[in-house]
């Protein structure tokens, strides 16, 4: 799905990155605890979170998330949005809760991040 389609599906506001709406998203990672994102999220995935502090932007930058989707109708504070603009990471906000957001995206073909497994098959989807 593109970011535009995700925004439409979830009735989301585009807070940062209105010019990046054609980015293609295939995977998602949802978390409120950032270490999990660092451990498991894959490059290109969309980060779905209820956190709004600037951490989410720094983490997204470190793991190369394609965008951040904030849930529960939260709007991140100015410092978070400014940092997102600086690091060129789109930020969206939806009123749906994390469970519903994940459910709807999953139902529309977005998958969770694959886990890398050692062995002849380098990547096996869960």
């Amino acid at each position, binding site marked *: 799905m593109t970011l535009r389609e995700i925004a439409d599906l979830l009735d989301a506001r585009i807070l940062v990155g209105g010019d990046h709406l054609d980015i293609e998203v295939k995977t998602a990672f949802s978390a*409120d*605890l*950032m*270490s*999990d994102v*660092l*451990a498991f999220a894959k*490059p290109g995935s969309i980060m779905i*979170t209820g*956190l709004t*502090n*600037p*951490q*989410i932007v*720094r*983490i997204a*930058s*470190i*793991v*190369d998330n394609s965008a951040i989707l904030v849930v529960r109708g939260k709007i991140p504070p100015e*410092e978070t949005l400014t940092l997102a603009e600086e*690091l060129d990471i789109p930020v969206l906000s939806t009123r749906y809760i994390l469970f519903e957001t994940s459910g709807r995206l999953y139902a529309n073909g977005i998958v969770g991040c694959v886990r890398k497994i050692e062995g002849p098959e380098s990547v096996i989807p869960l």
Partner: protein
Amino acid sequence: MTQACECSFSVEGEKFAEAGKVSVEVKKMLKKIGIPDDVRRRAAIATYESEVNIISYAIEGTVKLEVTRDRILIDIRDTGPGISNIEQAMEQGYSTANDRIREMGFGAGMGLFNIKNCSDTFEISSEEGKGTHLKILINR
């Protein structure tokens, strides 16, 4: 394009709003000197978790980055309470974080586990009441 660099950053304890600043800088620097995506990402993740540990648990610390032709060395030292049981601290999900720390999104107990996973070699030593020292090596 320079292929090596050496620099040092200070991190202050309790400064949660600053967490990740050093890691983002490190990632940018590594990109500038042509370090490949995957290596850069691993270095940034290891730096981030180290930074957050200093902020969450220590008084202050230093992150030293040294890049040579074949490897990246990240050396982290902090002054603080230290870690009483390193083996336990290395367990995935083990955390001594309080509720306040968790509510900010930290304290998942994945820090040292993540650092180890991102490193090619990883050394950790700690003295209770003094502080902790990490040496992370990532091959280019």
